[in-house]
């Protein structure tokens, strides 16, 4: 089985000597879903953002799809990774000045240099998959949060990525809108997409993930299968976190 992500002992410190990431290692194989959980400030967002170079780190090495990056910020390699890895953000971060379809075709047109017809055809196909093709000509501000996040997923898929990163994709949504986004993500996982998801959605983690990585203060506290993690977590710290989530 191909390894998509291999993280070896990465660390990152902030100027005040605080460790954002403390000797983190992990591995994700092709077609697997890794869910990262942990209290806020535990470094889970920082960790997922090192995978596509949005965040630098001070020590260790990351291997994404066979492209190795380390503490020297190698822009060419990071650019290569970004062309093959999609990312979805908590705040959607759609481009407000572009229509929904233009949001999706921007990267295929400018990064992959595809033809407009080709890019728009694939864009419409993706919007169809997300169930929002009727909004293609609208602007992001005209859509609900759940719809915007589905556009963001379509936009990330437009480059036909081999890995998708989700940084708290449902945290900014109204509760009744969360499932429409999670359903799309479930379907992606079923279709064999390799995914790393930072989330607090326990049900999603239970149903979809192959592994749970629990972090606290920049450290990996435990890595378990969802069965073990949710029924019989190895660490006191994990159990405490889960108890708090239940309340």
């Amino acid at each position, binding site marked *: 089985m191909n390894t998509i992500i291999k993280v070896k002992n990465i660390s990152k410190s902030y100027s005040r000597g605080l460790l954002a990431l403390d000797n983190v290692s992990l591995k994700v194989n092709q077609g697997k879903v890794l869910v990262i959980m942990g209290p806020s400030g535990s470094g889970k967002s920082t960790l997922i953002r090192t995978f*596509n*170079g*949005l965040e630098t780190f001070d020590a260790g090495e990351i291997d994404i799809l066979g492209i190795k990056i380390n503490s020297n910020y190698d822009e060419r390699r990071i*650019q290569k990774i*970004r*062309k093959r*890895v*999609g*990312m979805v*953000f908590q*705040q959607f*971060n*759609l*481009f*407000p*000045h572009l229509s929904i379809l233009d949001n999706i075709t*921007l*990267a295929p047109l*400018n*990064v992959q240099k595809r033809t407009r017809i080709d890019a728009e055809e694939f864009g419409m196909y993706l919007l169809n998959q997300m169930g929002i093709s009727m909004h293609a000509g609208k*602007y*992001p*501000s*005209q859509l609900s949060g759940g719809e915007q996040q589905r556009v963001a997923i379509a*936009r*990330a898929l437009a*480059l036909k990525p081999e890995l998708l990163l989700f940084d708290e994709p449902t945290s900014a949504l109204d509760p009744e809108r969360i499932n429409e986004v999670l359903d799309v993500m479930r379907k992606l996982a079923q279709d064999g997409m390799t995914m790393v998801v930072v989330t607090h959605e326990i049900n999603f983690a239970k149903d979809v993930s192959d592994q749970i990585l629990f972090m606290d203060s920049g450290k990996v506290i435990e890595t378990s299968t969802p069965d073990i993690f949710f029924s019989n977590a190895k660490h006191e710290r994990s159990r405490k976190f889960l108890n708090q989530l239940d309340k």
Partner: protein
Amino acid sequence: MKGDKIIFFQIIIILLLICLFGFLINNLIINLIRTDLGFNFSWLLKPASFALAEHALPYSPSDSYAWALLIGWLNSLKVIFVSLFLSTILGIIIGLSRTGNNVLLKIISSFYITIIRQTPLLLQLMFWYFVGFLGLKNNFINFTNLLKINNQGIEFLGLSLTSEFSALIIGLSVFTSAFIAEVIRGGIISVPKGQWESFRSLGLSERNGLIRVIIPQALPAIIPGLTSQYLNLAKNSTLAIAIGYSDIYAINDTIINQTGRAIECFIILLLTFLILNLLITNLMETINKFINKKNFLY
């Protein structure tokens, strides 16, 4: 009760303004009577009888004052539009350098902006003229006749610019560019950080992201600031008189000295500047509307 009070004060203020205005008009009329000049514009057709070093259209001292004023305006417009263009280009480069990732460029551009913004424009114009150009040797730069820079000015591909004109456009462009750079920077940092992360994560290059994602969103914040810098530039161009460039203000000054027609001259100056600046404002508003229409709804 409160509304009545406000209306009462407004009436008082309007009355005071009318009194002030009447007082000024009265002064004007008294002075016009005392100097025995009257108020008319017939002198405009008399020969100017002074020479002008720089003229875009044919001019000789036997031409009328009106013609001399027109030449002055053409000289001013030349300076304003060339400086407008150069300061915008320079401002964009410096503004982008200041927001970019390159540390050296960041330091240089901050230094540039600080120095230029904290010193008077008059001083800078003097510097460019007396130190920058008059201080040069005859053959400072002579690049196979394609580009010549010396104490006579700049000669570029057969286009020859006097040292006064060159110093003025360099001084005005450099000065205005520092302010434009800050306007650009302000516009760019007004775009949320998430937009940068978003285009980066899609594999877009910094240049592409700037052009397609950041700048379109920064423009609505940039245009109003840019407009006021362009208006300042137009008005600041009247400092040309300090280095002997015959712009509209300098020619007006000469005419006032010769004819004593200060009031008429100032009215001409006032109205023409008003028209020019209204044109600039309108043009920028049109651009702004176009941009906002294109990005409607956000």
